[in-house]
């Protein structure tokens, strides 16, 4: 049967749902998405959070990174500095603590640095239009990246000598190492984006000139680099007052010296905290942050504030600068006034109100102002036709990023004032989309508001939830970090990342990562089908006409991705009638009552599997003594093939793992965990109920030193009774293994809670460790004798 079309077309043809029946990452129906999981919905940039977390949970790090990159070209950067609204939305936050999504993203980005991949081919320009992007911060880079991928020519103009905008000018290296920024920008450049540094747009008619040079659209993403003044007496009178961006930029470029011994930072945002911690690292003895509201209102992230305190920064809340005091031309102190919190203002935060007569002085030789920034608009002359807001930012439609001048778009901090990297990335996407529509001569459309905290209807069953603490980020000791700009957060190890990702409850339906679809060869792993190209297990509906033969070809296209040839292996077993003894073992095994004996002619009956009821666990296949019950996958031949790959030079461990077990780590990951002298062969079955002694003996015979069977426990067996069957089977198996003289413990059956790969790994670990006591030569001799 060859049919071509979108999965959805197949769906229509069969008038039923085709779902990828697998505990692999796409867990459920890939088509009928009800509601995305809360994390995914919370991401302003629209990153498919659930998908990449799930992929990490499966040890599929590179694919996870690719999923991130679909919507975020700066994964390593965001993995460090994102304010991660996804974690705020995470359902687990209500129970223990959210999944450390941000750090997981960082992990996969870092993983690529240590496991380099072939670079993607540069994208050739297929559109004649060129777009000018002003500013190489996250907004500009995202828009440029999107546009170049669509075939447009893109030039990014950067005023500073290093691209990255606020990423390099504002964020210190101890939070965001420069090699990370450079690598991600290089990747964007490599795709075909031209970035011109030291190229400020300035002078008369700067925007007009861009159009004259042939650019058909302009994206103003200049950020907000211009510090606002305190507006207090004495501010202009003394040396020793510096605005935080200037300070941070110099420090980041390595130009800054110790600003002074006694430093006051005014403000409560990230830049304030960054400035304070940077001053400490440059050698300042006492660093104070003065903030006019209470700690709760501080815009800086709590973790950053905590680290600043640990490093010795002193915080003063509810205090506002009143006057700068000085001697000769140098600052000596700042006079402050105590504040109390009044009614909430338009930002929703309580407005600070001065307390009369509460003035006090803080001694200082340096004052760093970090009270807010705006875009540096010095390049813009009035006749450029781009309107500004009263806060001196670009007036842009937030749903299209269009400014008052056709063809000119603006986004990021230059529109919103200082905000987050992820918001800037989101703005970059919106702008790119609008620019494409503009160049296509189409009307602009409002982007759907993505992100934000919408109450999710998807809930986690608290009772089912096993407590698992959130992974902590390994950090440099305070003493080791305080005098350097070394990165403070050290990042996760692979095992830590997998375990953390496994905490994810995978709220909602299939994440639609679609990594299964375009990459045939990978489908085998993600859906855990038998090895070989282009095989996938599709749970086909009962009235879907099955190909005569397992492995028949169906072309499936997904969206704009290329069509792929999938070999269809029906989940539902087929009965080879001449082999059927009609003994009824299968009927007894299937508690769904999907199998029945149908009279054939005379006394003869044959087993029949009702495809509408059958869920494909394979338990009936396991109990069939003659082999009449044919699975569409995991056939005996396939098992033999897998076992043929055992390496008799090594210690071979065979794991028969239930699909639903959280066992979908790639072999490489597991292999890495167990060292070179061990060959680990993980053989998946739909359910542990599919295992019969024949499987295990064949593995032992093929040279396995140990065979571990893993399945879910009875109460969370996906097939309700598979675990029970496995348990019964194992009781006999264990006696046989003992009788024939294999050493105790070499065949083991472990029940692991479904989808818990940390426990899966632990089970494999302890199994391998338990086997570790064999003397190597004894084992070699055994192998030789058996093989």
């Amino acid at each position, binding site marked *: 049967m060859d049919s071509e079309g979108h999965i959805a077309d197949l769906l229509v043809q069969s008038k039923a749902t085709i779902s990828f029946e697998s505990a692999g990452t796409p867990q459920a129906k890939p088509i009928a998405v009800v509601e995305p999981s809360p994390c995914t919905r919370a991401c302003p940039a629209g990153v498919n959070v659930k998908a990449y977390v799930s992929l990490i949970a499966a040890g599929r790090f590179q694919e996870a990174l690719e999923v991130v990159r679909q919507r975020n070209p700066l994964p390593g950067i965001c993995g460090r500095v994102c304010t991660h609204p996804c974690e705020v939305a995470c359902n687990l936050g209500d129970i223990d603590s959210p999944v450390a999504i941000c750090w997981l993203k960082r992990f996969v980005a870092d993983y690529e640095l240590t496991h380099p991949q072939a670079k993607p081919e540069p994208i050739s320009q297929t559109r004649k239009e060129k777009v000018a992007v002003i500013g190489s911060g996250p907004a500009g880079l995202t828009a440029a990246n999107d546009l170049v991928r669509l075939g447009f020519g893109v030039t990014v103009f950067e005023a500073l000598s290093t691209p990255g905008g606020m990423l390099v000018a504002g964020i210190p290296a101890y939070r965001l190492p420069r090699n990370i920024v450079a690598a991600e920008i290089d990747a964007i450049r490599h795709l075909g984006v031209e970035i011109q540094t030291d190229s400020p747009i300035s002078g008369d008619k700067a925007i007009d000139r861009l159009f004259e040079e042939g650019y058909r659209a302009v994206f103003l993403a200049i950020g907000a680099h211009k510090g606002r003044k305190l507006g207090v007496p004495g501010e202009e009178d003394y040396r020793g007052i510096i605005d935080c961006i200037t300070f941070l930029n110099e420090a980041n470029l390595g130009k800054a010296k110790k600003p002074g011994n006694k430093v006051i930072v005014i403000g409560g945002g990230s830049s304030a905290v960054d400035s304070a911690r940077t001053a400490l690292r440059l050698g300042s003895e006492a660093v104070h942050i003065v903030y006019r509201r209470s700690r709760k209102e501080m815009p800086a992230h709590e973790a950053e504030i905590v680290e600043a305190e640990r490093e010795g920064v002193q915080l003063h809340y509810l205090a506002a600068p009143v006057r700068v005091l000085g001697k000769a031309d140098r600052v000596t102190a700042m006079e402050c006034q105590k504040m109390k919190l009044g009614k909430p203002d338009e930002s929703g935060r309580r407005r600070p109100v001065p307390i009369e007569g509460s003035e006090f002085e803080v001694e200082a030789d340096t004052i760093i102002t970090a009270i807010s920034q705006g875009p540096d608009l010095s390049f813009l002359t009035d006749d450029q036709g781009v309107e500004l807001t009263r806060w001196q930012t670009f007036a842009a439609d937030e749903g299209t990023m269009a400014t008052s001048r056709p063809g000119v778009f603006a986004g990021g901090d230059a529109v919103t004032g200082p905000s987050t990297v992820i918001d800037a990335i989101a703005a970059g996407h919106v702008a790119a989309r609008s620019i494409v529509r503009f160049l296509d001569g189409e009307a602009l459309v409002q982007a759907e508001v993505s992100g934000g905290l919408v109450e999710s209807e998807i809930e986690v069953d608290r009772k089912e939830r096993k407590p698992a603490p959130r992974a902590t980020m390994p950090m440099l000791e305070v003493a080791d970090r305080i005098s350097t700009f070394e990165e403070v957060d050290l990042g996760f190890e692979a095992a830590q990342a997998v375990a953390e990702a496994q905490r994810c409850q995978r709220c909602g339906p299939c994440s639609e990562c679609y990594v299964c679809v375009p990459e045939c060869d990978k489908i085998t792993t993600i859906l855990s089908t038998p090895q070989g190209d282009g095989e996938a297990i599709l749970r086909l509906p009962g009235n879907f006409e099955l190909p005569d033969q397992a492995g028949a070809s169906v072309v499936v296209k997904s969206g704009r991705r290329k069509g792929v040839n999938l070999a269809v292996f029906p989940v539902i077993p087929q009965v080879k*009638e*001449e*082999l*059927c*003894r*009609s*003994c*009824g*073992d299968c*009927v*007894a095994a299937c508690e769904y009552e999907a199998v029945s*004996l149908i009279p054939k002619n005379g*006394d*003869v*009956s*044959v087993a029949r599997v009702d495809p509408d009821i059958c869920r494909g666990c394979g338990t009936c296949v*396991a109990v069939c*003594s*003659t*082999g*009449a019950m044919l699975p569409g996958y995991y056939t*005996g031949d396939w098992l033999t093939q897998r076992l043929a790959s055992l390496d008799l030079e090594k210690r071979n461990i065979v794991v028969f793992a239930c699909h639903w077990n959280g066992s979908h780590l790639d072999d490489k990951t597991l292999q890495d965990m167990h060292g070179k002298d061990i060959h680990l062969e993980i053989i998946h079955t739909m359910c542990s109920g599919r295992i*019969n*002694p*024949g*499987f295990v*003996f*064949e593995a*032992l*015979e093929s040279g396995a030193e140990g065979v571990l069977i893993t399945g879910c426990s009875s109460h969370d067996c996906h097939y309700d009774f598979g675990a029970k069957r496995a348990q019964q089977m194992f009781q*006999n198996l264990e*006696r*046989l293994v*003992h*009788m*024939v*003289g294999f050493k105790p413990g070499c065949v083991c059956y472990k029940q692991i809670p479904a989808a818990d790969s940390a426990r899966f790994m632990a089970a494999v670990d302890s199994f391998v460790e338990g086997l570790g006591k064999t003397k190597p030569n*004894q084992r070699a*001799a*055994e192998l030789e*004798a*058996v093989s």
Partner: protein
Amino acid sequence: MIDTIELNDQIKRTNAYACLECGKCTSVCPVSRYGRDYSPRMLLNRTIRKDFDAIFQDYDLWSCLTCKKCDDVCLAGIQYIELTQLLRSKALEEGFKGKCSHAGALQSLSRIMTSEYLHQNRLDWVTDDLGIATEGEILYFVGCAPYFDVFFSDLEVTTLEAAQSSIRILNRLGIEPVLLADERCCGHDLLWNGDAENFTRLGKHNLEEISKTGAKTILFSCAECLSTFKSLYPQWGLTVKPELKHMSQFLAEKVATGELELQSSDTSITYQDPCRLGRHLGIYDEPRQVLATGSPRDNGAPLREMQQAGKRSLCCGVSAWMNCDRTSKAIQTERLRQAKSTGADVLAVACPKCQIHLTCTMKDQLLKDKYGLTIRDISALTLERMQ
């Protein structure tokens, strides 16, 4: 590539080229009769035509039950089952194999037992009240019963009862038989799966172990083990020195000499001749003599013989754990029908395989109410009748 010259020589020795194409073999073949379109005659025909590819690819190469009915009726003296064994070995070499039942677990177990470094715990079932020895003149070869009873625990089959009863009988006769702690599968099934190499290894191991015990007589409850020792080992160059006896032969002797006195019983018995004991080794009378002792008379006959008995006996339907299928069941159903229609209470067996295969069909969902019979080994029945 198949060495056809060598193969040809081997085939010649089976007399296959003398085939008259009379078709008697097919007419007596239970596989042909009760199920498939299988024909020994056609296989001979293909052999003569040297159409080996077709033979090897045919499921039916592995269907022969090696029950030897065909050999017994062949006018040309063709050794058809030996030809089968030969062709299976060649087929295996060429990468073909039979359809193993139970996902090949039992074949695997046998192959695992070829390991020199195995330390089995196969005598856990020997309770303190059973007197056994490690050295002595009489050795009891247990066979794979300990494994079968665990493997087929779902069938609640108790093939070990034969061993337990045999030892008890021997004990009562003042004999503590030698049991091998490291007895291995005799290799019968592997050989019939075409695997002569592992068969030979198992044979060598068993004979070595036996030689250490000083055994002069080996007793068997398993007809397959006995035929392996008696025919197959020598055929494959392994010399077996001790005298070999099936338990039924041993019991018959003891009954004849009066050493064994059996009580009369109300239980009426019918008897399943194992192919190995009957047509392979020609042992028909001794089991009957033992079973008849003390049995109630039925029209003068102590045993209630089935429609097909003795030389004409019907196989239990599966051989060497291969190709068990609808036909097997049809044969077994027919055999149970025959047994049931004798009106006997008990179906006596002299081979654990008969016991397992017939029990399997008897416990079948669809048949269990139809053919309910007690199936028991000769030794177990004999022990019950002892004074």
